[in-house]
């Protein structure tokens, strides 16, 4: 019998039925869902899927914000040996249509009217038989025969369960490690998305690695740990953190009400394990700084004093692998009583015992700030195609600017010619859905996964990522430049949200820069600068000067070929729906180049021949 995330949940429901598996906030009050409730829901939904004709190997799609129903459907699908396909709630109709059609999903969970509309407008989907919705609001007058409410789905499940007791459990017992449990579509910055197939065996290897073989926190994560589920569940990182850790370690999942309420929910939940992408850490850092800028004189100076201590602490900790010395411990103890505790409480990070950052490159100074205020911060590395496990900074052996050490049980090497990072281990995916050519390009015959990232070793133990292979800029002078390092340096400023460095085949580097509306807006208000829109604010001379200052600071840290000679302000906030960002908020360089072509050219035109 194969151990899977499903059997882990079943066993927890048997061993600790009344313990809390997850919480969700309904009408302003947190409600608990126990392991017994969870397993009952999985069985009901699993039977419902069987009643709807879903068979092992079929695909079940879901386009929904994070909520218990997402997990119920996901685990029920895996329980009957079918495959879950997650869609981003922000996917516009055209992408929704592509994903539903490419995966050939037969059942689709569309959270509410907005998502139902996307599915209904998706054109001809011959394989899609049922569209389940959770929120009935606005759907009363819809008469598409494929629509089925969540309550009716559960009803169908209970009926089927009475008639066929044990049908779902039998399939759970028949699971094989090679069962594809999910397709994770990678929102590539170029080309259409590809569906990475992750298997039951991949998931088990991940859980055994991070929980048992080399636990990422001491003591290992367990039922006392709290997590906040807020990043999209269709992304591999959040799926591992929310669904798999919950099944594997019994951590309690708390669902954020919505992406807008994450700061409030973070304060209410005070999670003990917290993962965020660089964008969120940058935003938290900006929040901490901006709150202080608008405080009274005394508060500002008091906070300023302690933040300078934090910077010093962060630098010392970073130099010491994240371990305290006697001196830093004493300073921190005093700071905890007088300032850090309050700040961490305000940020929702008071109880965090393991914080991590991944999924995109981050500026070391951002991580160092959080280390300084006492948040144990660890950068990790992994990708969809290896189920998000490859390397991690270990507690006490942190090296800023690296993604840490290779996990036990994982082979990792650098390609001798290109420096590309290659990994080989049992969590390497089973290939791209219906795309053997892309699979063959990505995984070599002897099992090495080509990550597409370029890296180098630091001290022979820690891995540093230089950049994405295809993002490396080769200037007209033939110099190789890694844009992400410069971009992250710029984005570490609380005033800058987006930075896109340009220079491939050009004489020098330039950048398109987008401001952070909240912080620059507050900065402008303090200076009594009136502004109307994002664009108006961006184009103010004072704001340009502010950005110039940041650019100069970052330039000072780089050699001349890596310096940004000119920059222009982006006239709008970049957006997924406008095609400028991927669903994971990564900039699509090709789209940016095309959309802001004139702006880019203007930085090279007037200097033609001059430099």
């Amino acid at each position, binding site marked *: 019998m194969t151990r899977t995330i499903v059997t882990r949940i079943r066993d927890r429901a048997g061993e600790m039925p009344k313990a809390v598996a997850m919480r969700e906030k309904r*009408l*302003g*009050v947190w409600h608990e869902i126990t392991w017994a409730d969870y397993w009952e829901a999985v069985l009901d939904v699993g039977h419902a899927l069987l009643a709807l004709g879903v068979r092992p190997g079929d695909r079940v799609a879901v386009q929904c914000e994070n909520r218990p129903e997402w997990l119920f459907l996901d685990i029920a699908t895996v329980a009957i040996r079918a495959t879950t396909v997650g869609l981003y709630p922000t996917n516009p109709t055209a992408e929704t249509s592509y994903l539903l059609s490419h995966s050939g999903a037969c059942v689709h969970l569309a959270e509410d009217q907005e998502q139902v509309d996307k599915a209904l407008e998706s054109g001809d989907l011959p394989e899609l038989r049922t569209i389940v919705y959770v929120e009935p*609001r*606005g759907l*009363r*007058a819809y008469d598409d025969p494929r629509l089925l409410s969540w309550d009716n789905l559960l009803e169908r499940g209970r009926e089927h369960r009475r008639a066929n007791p044990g049908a779902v459990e039998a399939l759970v017992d028949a699971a094989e490690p090679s069962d594809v449990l999910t397709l994770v579509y990678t929102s590539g910055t170029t080309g259409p998305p590809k569906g990475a197939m992750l298997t039951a065996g991949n998931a088990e290897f991940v859980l055994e690695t991070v929980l048992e073989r080399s636990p990422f926190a001491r003591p290992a994560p367990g039922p006392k740990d709290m997590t906040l589920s807020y990043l999209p569940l269709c992304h591999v990182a959040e799926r591992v953190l929310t669904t798999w850790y919950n099944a594997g370690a019994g951590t309690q999942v708390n669902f954020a*009400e*919505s992406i*807008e*309420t994450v700061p*409030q929910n973070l304060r209410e939940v005070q999670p003990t394990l917290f993962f965020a992408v660089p964008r969120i850490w940058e935003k938290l850092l900006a929040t901490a700084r901006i709150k202080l800028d608008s405080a009274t004189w005394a508060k500002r100076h008091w906070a300023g004093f302690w933040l300078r201590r934090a910077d010093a602490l962060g630098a010392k900790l970073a130099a010491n692998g994240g371990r305290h010395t006697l001196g830093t411990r004493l300073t921190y103890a005093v700071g905890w009583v007088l300032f850090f505790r309050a700040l961490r409480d305000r940020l929702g990070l008071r109880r965090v015992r393991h914080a991590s950052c991944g999924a995109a490159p981050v500026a070391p100074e951002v991580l160092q700030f959080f280390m300084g205020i006492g948040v144990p911060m660890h950068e990790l590395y992994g990708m969809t195609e290896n189920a998000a496990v490859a390397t991690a900074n270990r507690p006490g052996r942190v090296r800023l600017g690296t993604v840490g050490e290779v996990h036990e049980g994982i082979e990792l090497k650098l390609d001798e010619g290109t420096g590309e990072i290659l990994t080989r281990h049992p969590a390497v995916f089973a290939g791209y859905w219906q795309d053997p050519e892309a699979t063959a390009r990505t995984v070599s015959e002897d099992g090495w996964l080509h990550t597409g990232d370029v890296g180098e070793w630091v001290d022979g133990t820690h891995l540093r990522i230089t950049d994405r292979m295809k993002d490396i800029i080769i200037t007209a002078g033939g110099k190789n430049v890694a844009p992400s390092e410069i971009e992250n340096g710029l984005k570490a400023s609380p005033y800058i949200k987006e930075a896109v460095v340009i220079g491939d085949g050009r004489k020098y580097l330039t950048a398109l820069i987008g401001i952070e509306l909240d912080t620059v807006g507050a900065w402008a208000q303090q200076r009594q600068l009136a502004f109307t829109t994002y664009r108006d604010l961006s184009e103010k001379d004072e704001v340009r000067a502010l950005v110039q200052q940041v650019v100069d600071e970052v330039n000072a840290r780089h050699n001349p070929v890596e310096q940004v000679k000119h920059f222009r302000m982006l006239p709008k906030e970049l957006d997924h729906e406008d095609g400028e960002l991927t669903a994971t908020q990564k900039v699509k360089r090709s789209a940016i180049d095309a959309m802001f072509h004139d702006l880019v050219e203007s930085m090279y035109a007037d200097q033609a021949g001059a430099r």
Partner: protein
Amino acid sequence: MGLVNAQSGPVLQFDDVHLSFGAVKAVNGVSFTVGENELFAVIGPNGAGKTSIFNVLSGVYRPQRGTVVLDGVDLIGKRPPAIARLGMARTFQNIELFANLTVLDNLMLGRHQHLRYGTLAAMAWWGRARNEELRHRVKVEEIVDFLELEQWRKMPVGLLPYGVQKRVELGRALAMEPRLLLLDEPVAGMNLEETEDMARYILDIRDELQIPMIMVEHDMGLVMDVADRVMVVDFGTPVATGTPTEIQRNPDVIRAYLGGDPDAEQDVRHAIEGGASA
């Protein structure tokens, strides 16, 4: 589209109402009815008497002639608080919220007429006061959920963007659990996105909460898109009443807006029809 329910009698009857201020006839023989689940819009040029109609409805002005009946109860001569207790709630053209109170507190104020406990019990936070308060909080949270106000629950209303303040004001009116909701220019001063959001909330109030509404609005696109029936008034006099399609075809309506200027007529016709198809 909307479900116009014609089976039961009208929720509101507004019959031959005349209201004058000296020689100015603000409302001159206006009659209409509003049915269950109906979204009834009143449009007209500036000074046409739309707001006067609202003020008659909510009891601010007492008309010289005519009857106003809500659910079989005559409203003429009743004071505004009494009319509010009968189930008439309204929002205002200019936001009328308590800027220093939080969103939750402003919504709780909407529950005021449903509070049954006394001051002493409230101060003790005991017995009936406690139970009732918890019940009202649930009701308020349902509105927070309905209008998607979660992220601003504990923010002072004065600090919120304009479009959100308008939503909070709508929420306070909904907190009264009204029988009939009056919306005075719900999208005035809003940008396109805020207007679209508000239109969705208004339709959801009709279809999900099944509260009939009377809406005064200048945004012709919104009116033609969402209203079940439209009444056009000019100089206090009703010009036409009918479905949006009927109104768009009515030549008197265009004249009322323009006073017979043929060039402008073309513009307005375009605006009205364009709005309907938007």
